[in-house]
């Protein structure tokens, strides 16, 4: 039995996202490196010089806490592959900024699924009664090797979820989860290296598609659900095409996928990718909606969840909430030279 289910129900109390305002069109990256028209996505979100995984995590966490209406958590797990320090947790910087001291806090690494792993972990801690509420945060300022095709999509963003018990108008419940892993070298970065390496086309079928299909099909088997039982499905988005291909192959329809598709405008925010799609979907969801979330992390693995939207969504979400769409739509275009400076690609 590989399903992940807690004895006590665990709810999502709030969520918050942060997308940095600067954008670089992939045509601009192509202009510098390849001479072709651009990448599979139109543009991507770029963190400024004074932003990093910690600053973005703080912003999305604060938003999530505000929506949840709580001022303390018992766990903060930050999933990131662009930790500002190799040794010194991002999560304690977030904890300090949130005024939390007596809390579990650590960083998780599992490429793009580090934060959904965090979601499973916090769910377990809440479900066991060990903590009342916890934060699962995704934050990445992904770096692409200059000139490599991944540079088109490697982007920056953060999203955070507060999980807790169901006492005060939760916005959703996590019904069921599955986690599937194998030792697969589709994409990696050695210690001390600035940029990752990957195996090109191998990152498709044997990596992304295999793992997502494995976690989702097992989840469907265990729960007895079919694609038609879901209002929405969100998949990890390394480029605009993969999540659509995976979704359609698994039997979902475009309308179910659309609200969560963000890669074309903001690129691949790595650990925040699938969860940002979930936040965008939450922004338009209604009580009663059942949502499928499936992440993929290179190295490799996939986390799948069934999430049910509750009445609290309408109460808590609207108001001073910053929607994902509003952040996606608001961008300042920059050129490659500025991009290279902000992302530290120029040696000084």
């Amino acid at each position, binding site marked *: 039995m590989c399903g992940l289910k807690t004895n006590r129900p665990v709810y999502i109390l709030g969520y918050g996202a942060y997308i940095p*305002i600067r954008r670089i069109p992939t045509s601009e990256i192509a202009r510098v490196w390849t001479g072709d028209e651009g990448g599979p996505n139109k543009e991507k979100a770029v963190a*400024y*010089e*004074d*932003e*990093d995984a*910690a*600053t973005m995590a*703080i*912003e999305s966490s604060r938003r999530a806490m505000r929506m949840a209406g709580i001022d303390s958590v018992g766990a903060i797990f930050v999933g990131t592959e662009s930790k*500002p*320090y190799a040794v010194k947790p991002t999560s304690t*910087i977030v904890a*300090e*900024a949130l*005024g939390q001291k007596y809390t579990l806090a650590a960083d998780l690494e599992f490429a793009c699924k580090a934060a959904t792993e965090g979601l499973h972990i916090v769910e377990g801690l809440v479900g066991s009664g060990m903590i009342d509420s916890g934060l699962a945060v995704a934050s990445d300022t992904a770096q692409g090797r200059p000139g490599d095709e991944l540079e088109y999509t490697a982007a920056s963003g953060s999203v955070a979820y507060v999980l807790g018990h169901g006492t005060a108008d939760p916005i959703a419940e996590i019904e069921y989860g599955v986690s599937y892993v194998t030792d697969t070298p589709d994409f990696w970065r050695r210690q001390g290296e600035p940029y990752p390496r990957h195996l090109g086309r191998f990152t498709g079928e044997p990596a992304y598609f295999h793992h997502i299909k494995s976690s989702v099909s097992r989840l469907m088997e265990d729960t007895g659900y079919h694609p038609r039982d879901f209002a929405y499905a969100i998949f990890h988005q390394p480029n605009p095409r993969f999540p659509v291909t995976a979704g359609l192959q698994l039997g979902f329809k475009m309308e179910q996928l659309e609200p969560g598709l963000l890669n074309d405008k903001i690129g691949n925010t790595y650990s925040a990718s699938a969860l940002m799609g979930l936040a965008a979907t939450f922004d338009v969801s209604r009580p009663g909606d059942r949502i499928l979330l499936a992440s993929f992390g290179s190295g490799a693995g996939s986390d799948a969840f069934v999430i049910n939207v509750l009445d609290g969504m309408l109460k808590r979400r609207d108001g001073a909430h*910053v929607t994902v769409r*509003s952040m996606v739509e*608001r961008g*300042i275009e920059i050129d490659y030279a500025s991009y290279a400076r902000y992302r530290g690609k120029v040696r*000084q």
Partner: protein
Amino acid sequence: MALPPIAYWRTKRTYYDMKGSICRSCGAAFYPPVKVCPKCGSRELDSAPMPQGGRIIGFTTTNEVGASFRRYRPLTFGLVELDNGVVVLGQLVDFTGDELKVGARVRAVIRKLREDGTDGIIYYGFKFAPER
């Protein structure tokens, strides 16, 4: 030239939360924090976070930036009157085009203030971004 990391650590609350002081006797608020109320002289002061929003009362973009911050220039600074009347000096970030003007509403955000080279500490603290 930089302050020692320990000096920074000690004042972290000031830079993460904008923790200032509120005088229990006369109610005045101050940032950075004080030990004696500059207004009424009382020593009865509470540590309290300042409001995270305010409006710009003045701004400038500095091109000639000192050594510690040189690689981040130009830097834009604003005098922000927080919602409790306290005036704070801070960097302004993420302003587009004509958003930057006196009276513009801002919110405090946490950003990197500077890095101590490639192997030293990263200093985080508040800056001001447009309130959206």
